[in-house]
């Protein structure tokens, strides 16, 4: 009988143990670690209370990294939340029935390719001399626009953000397409009979029907932009100077280049607070969505 009662615990134990050891324990450890001044190479571990936090709030690099993340958020919300919805609606239009599958597949390809491949490829595209982008600009007579995109502190962050869009737009578009395909066709037929044009049926039928997935896409896009790491790391490592530093690369630099582990933990906790708030907003939106 005791054996029967223990059975369910055996079933959940493996997942639970792995998660406790590799997620929950480190998260708690990180809170503690942020209260110390320590480096991985010395045993000297000094308790400094909230010292790291007061330092963070006066750290101009932290703010400029945060600003870069917010720029990423802004562009991503415009393109991957709003632009993707319009794109999905266009791709699902009857007029494009013949070419939509091809376009859909090609638009989705970058989602499947890992960031290091894309990063290295775009290293060539942004290359100052032989880069495709500069070559293209020259060929259409915009010679004066050419620059070393990743080496120029004015354009580095934009170049990185563009890659995020190049890769991410296909994914959110696909999420919307899946949602639009679930809308009953009768709604559109009824709309047509009532004399709804394409734009009207987008606003009166498509938009209300995909509202829920739009919340999901928004929260997803926001957290992607807050957590962006690999794009920046592969392309610029935060440079030139700190022009394209974002929170995650700043955390990496503090931890593994400057060996300021305690301070890096503090940056990590700021990321935790931001993503935790996003999560709260998400679950609140979802619960109200379900109660309706």
């Amino acid at each position, binding site marked *: 009988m005791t054996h029967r*009662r223990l*059975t*369910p615990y*055996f*079933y*959940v134990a*493996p*997942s*639970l143990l792995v*998660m*406790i*050891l*590799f*997620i929950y324990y*480190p*998260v708690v450890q*990180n809170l503690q*670690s942020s209260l110390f001044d320590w480096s991985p190479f010395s045993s000297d571990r000094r308790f400094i209370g909230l010292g790291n936090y007061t330092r963070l709030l006066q750290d101009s690099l932290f703010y400029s990294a945060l600003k870069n993340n917010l720029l990423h958020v802004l562009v991503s919300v415009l393109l991957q939340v709003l632009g993707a919805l319009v794109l999905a609606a*266009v791709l699902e239009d009857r007029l494009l029935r013949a070419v939509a599958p091809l*376009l859909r*597949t*090609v*638009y989705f*390809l*970058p989602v*499947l*390719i*890992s*960031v*290091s*491949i894309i990063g*290295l490829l775009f290293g*060539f*595209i942004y290359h100052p001399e*032989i880069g*495709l982008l500069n070559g293209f600009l020259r060929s259409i007579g915009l010679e004066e626009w050419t620059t070393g995109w990743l080496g120029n502190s004015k354009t580095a962050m934009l170049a990185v953000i563009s890659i995020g869009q*190049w890769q991410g737009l*296909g994914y959110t578009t*696909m999420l919307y397409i899946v*949602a639009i395909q679930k809308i009953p066709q009768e709604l559109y037929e009824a709309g047509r*009979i009532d*004399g709804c*044009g*394409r734009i009207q049926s987008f606003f009166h039928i498509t938009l209300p029907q995909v509202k829920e997935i739009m919340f*999901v896409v928004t*929260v997803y896009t926001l*957290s992607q932009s807050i*957590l962006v*790491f*690999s794009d920046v*790391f*592969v392309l610029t490592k935060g440079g030139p100077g700190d022009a394209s530093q974002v929170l995650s690369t700043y*955390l990496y630099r503090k*931890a593994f280049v400057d060996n300021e*582990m305690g301070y*890096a933990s503090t940056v*990590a906790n700021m*990321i*935790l607070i931001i*993503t935790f708030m996003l999560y709260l907003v998400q679950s609140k939106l979802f619960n109200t969505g379900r109660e309706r």
Partner: protein
Amino acid sequence: MTTLPAALSRERTRRRSYSAASVIGTVCVSLLLLLYFLAVAYPLFWMVISSFKETNDIYSRTWSLPAQWMFSNYTAAWKQGLSDYFMNSVIVTGMTVVFNVLFSAFSAYGLSRFSFRGKHLILALLSAGLMFSPQVSLIPLYKLVQAIGIYDTHWTLILPYVAFKTSLIVLLIRSFFVALPKEYEESAYLEGCTSLGILFRIFLPLSMPIILTAALQTAYYAWNEFMFAIIFVDSDAVKTITAGLMAFRDALSTDWGVLMAGLTLSALPLVTMFVAMQKVFIRGLGDGGVKG
């Protein structure tokens, strides 16, 4: 029904009167779709074409087809380390998928078929993993994998990957298990089947589509993960593709054709998988909601 002919004729007049505007609109939209198509397809096409070129050829004739098709670039890339990175990625991805799907199926089964004390707490712990991003536990995790002696081995990636994907996959499989009718297992219990037997002989075979979705989602994540892959692994012999390509770039800074061949080879597995199983893939993205 009587109104249908009238509606149709109204539709016809409407269409005629708006035709000029809608033609212009259609042309503009088609142009934008074509531009986006080129922006996605051309860099990838260029990557593949350049992978057959000599370095000089890439430099001096950036936009042309190869002067001489260098199929040897591929064998060179494979021999210069890519084969090792590939094998490591296959091992890490394979193990992550097996462990994650197995553990998650166990948990989902325990949570959906038994009632026991602490069930709600365990469900909450298992699903709350979605709130925590890898960044937040990065530093303690870095210490942890060293302390338990798995740093710089395949396990240093497999176990955290399993941990960070558990929540999504448990929720995915659980929602399917909960919906399975009780009658199946009751008759099996009467015939003396153990609960483990029921999971393997009844539940898993019945849920193959969702298991496949779960496996694909996990594989996608493990194959492309970047941050842990560059931080928790140091030696070339253990590196997965995403991290290996960075080392590959440094080693091949002058041999661009071979580097391009390496990028193309690395992109192939997921792209092929997607083209072969597009339906499952897209449904998985829809079902799982949010990746990452």
